[in-house]
């Protein structure tokens, strides 16, 4: 016994020292590994933030230009003779009056020296084809202005807009110049007299689509998106919540429910264009619903969002502690009472968050809507879910495909509007979660 003790006692100190040494050496390596891991993590974050920043900067710098629009100040004389209405003041006559004539007359009055037909055409090309629309609205709002002369800012043509914004050249002799020397002189004169200015582009938010970039607006697409998402929400939320509750709380766990679960998870991963084809085959061809309608768009988007909402809903239900269910059951609450009184209120914030994220996803969908004809060129603002309409992402797609230079900044502006709506929806999700989150 004593021998053993001596043998082990003597090297014990040395062993301890050696062990400390080994640990110390490994410690340095461990710290180095930790530092490396942190550096990689920070690097990854920096790279992704940089990509995001570049993307946002690109879109914002391109798109902010579209918030402003070049206009020309002209004294417009509302002459009933030029308007070709005589003494008639009824709504139909006012709607059909010749407002283009008023614009041309005002332009001619501004530049009385212009006489020849060719020169006049060049002069009028500085203004948008739709410059008269604003006059129509003014007259319809208040017919008493007929006979008076008013100074009015009229929308310039897209070429002039691009030149004023510096996107297209305006120096004589520059490559790609779209103006004659005479036009350049007129532009110079207007500018010198303060009759050419960039103003806030209200049309972007109050008009429907147009072939002319300076006239095109997003309202049709925004309303179309709102109708589509409204339909999606009406279908998705009740069905999604009911499905999640049934599968999570009531359904027996057997092969059938396993199969259903696997299929729901798979559906969430199916490319959205496939849902578009399904919508085309079922809603359009079988049920004969109208083409390009937000109703059908909403139905297809509902198919796409349902798996997301069901999965989020089940996760929210799973997160409710079983002790709450046991407490209610132990008091003699029925299964349904347990779910509606305790489990569902606790899971609701998570379900709402999932729903809003699913809706945000649906808001950004393009491909399936192309399949059901929501890619058509539609000028009118839809008045109901059965009217033909575009939606925001499709509008982005349509504009990005247009050859006119003016649509480049419009495309970015449409993306900004889309991103604003997406951010608002995400903020709503965060707000809901914070507001209804409960501790237990």
């Amino acid at each position, binding site marked *: 016994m004593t021998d053993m003790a001596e043998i082990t006692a003597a090297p014990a100190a040395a062993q301890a020292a050696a062990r400390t040494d080994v640990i110390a050496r490994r410690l340095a390596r461990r710290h180095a590994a930790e530092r490396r891991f942190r550096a990689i993590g920070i690097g990854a974050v920096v790279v992704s933030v940089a990509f995001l920043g570049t993307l946002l900067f690109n879109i914002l710098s391109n798109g902010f230009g579209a918030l402003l629009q070049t206009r020309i100040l002209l004294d417009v004389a509302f002459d009933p003779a030029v308007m070709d209405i005589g003494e008639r003041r009824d709504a139909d006559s006012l709607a059909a009056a010749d407002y283009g004539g008023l614009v041309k007359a005002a332009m001619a009055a501004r530049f009385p020296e212009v006489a020849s037909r060719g020169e006049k055409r060049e002069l009028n090309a500085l203004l948008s084809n739709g410059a008269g629309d604003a006059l129509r609205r003014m007259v319809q709002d208040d017919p008493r202005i007929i006979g008076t002369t008013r100074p009015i800012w009229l929308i310039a043509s897209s070429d002039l807009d691009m030149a004023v914004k510096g996107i297209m050249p305006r120096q004589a002799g520059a490559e790609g110049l779209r103006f004659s020397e005479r036009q350049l002189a007129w532009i110079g004169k207007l500018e010198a007299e303060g009759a050419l200015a960039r103003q806030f582009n209200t049309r972007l938010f109050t008009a429907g689509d147009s072939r002319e970039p300076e006239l095109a607006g997003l309202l049709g697409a925004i309303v179309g998106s709102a109708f589509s998402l409204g339909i999606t929400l009406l279908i998705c939320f009740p069905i999604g919540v009911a499905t999640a509750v049934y599968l999570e709380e009531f359904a027996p*766990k057997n092969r059938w429910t396993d199969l259903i679960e696997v299929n729901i998870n798979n559906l969430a991963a199916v490319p959205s264009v496939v849902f578009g084809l399904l919508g085309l085959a079922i809603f359009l061809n079988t049920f004969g619903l109208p083409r390009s309608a937000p109703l059908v768009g909403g139905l297809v988007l509902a198919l796409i969002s349902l798996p997301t909402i069901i999965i989020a809903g089940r996760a929210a239900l799973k997160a409710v*502690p079983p*002790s*709450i*269910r*046991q*407490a*209610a*059951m*132990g*008091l*003699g*609450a*029925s299964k349904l*009472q347990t779910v509606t*009184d*305790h489990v569902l209120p*606790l899971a609701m914030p998570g379900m709402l968050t999932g729903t809003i994220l699913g809706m945000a996803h649906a808001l950004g969908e393009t491909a399936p809507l192309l399949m059901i004809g929501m890619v058509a060129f539609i000028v009118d603002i839809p008045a109901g879910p059965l009217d033909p309409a575009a939606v925001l992402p499709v509008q982005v797609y349509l504009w990005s495909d247009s050859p006119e230079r003016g649509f480049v900044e419009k495309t970015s502006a449409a993306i900004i509007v889309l991103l604003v709506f997406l951010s608002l929806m995400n903020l709503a999700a965060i707000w809901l979660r914070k507001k209804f989150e*409960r*501790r*237990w």
Partner: protein
Amino acid sequence: MNQYIPKGTAKVSARGLDVFYGDKQALHHIDLDIAAGEVTALIGPSGCGKSTFLRCINRMNDLVEGARVSGTLTLDGNDIHDRRLDVVQLRARVGMVFQKPNPFPKSIYENVAYGPRIHGLARDRAELDEIVMNSLEKAGLLAEVESRLSESGTSLSGGQQQRLCIARAIAVNPEVILMDEPCSALDPIATAKVEELIDELRDNYTIVIVTHSMQQAARVSQRTAFFHLGKLIEVGGTEEIFTNPCEPLTQGYITGRFG
């Protein structure tokens, strides 16, 4: 083996009770009577089946996937597993307090009022108020929470939460209260309060308590049943079991040789 079964006075009575979880048998042929107006403690090492037995009495085992029960278990002579017996009715008669305090994340008042409300025990608001106040009073909690009934039940301390859960169970006016290690998550002072409460409740309710603490079993119970590996080894008066057990296994467990 079961030296003391009070004939005719049994509130709950098990005869040949087997419980299976899937292929695994959790309880083997249990014969056990629980007397009215007494505290019965179920003791034994972890996994011995004492909680399983407890959960049979209000059929909480129904919620467990793959649980099967055979044999008879009666409450006042009526079969608990009778198909015609609605489990909701059973649980109104047999309340339960869980291991971890689990108040609803609602106000203290709502916590207690929920049971009476779903069973329709109060005709109007005044009656409901009375039930809530009475239950809190009986659970010894009223003085502490009277001024803040609208605060969340989860804002209370652990011991208060557990007493709130007891008040919640009492509010339904059950005949039997099952307690599954009600003090295991509490500190000694809160434990003492709950034990005191159990002692007071004994006059009006039949109480079955599962506990890991043999001291607790000795303090609060009149009868003790010792489970081991899914079998009921011995049942008898608490004093007898702790001072003079018949079975060597019981002797070994209470003296701390295993468990």
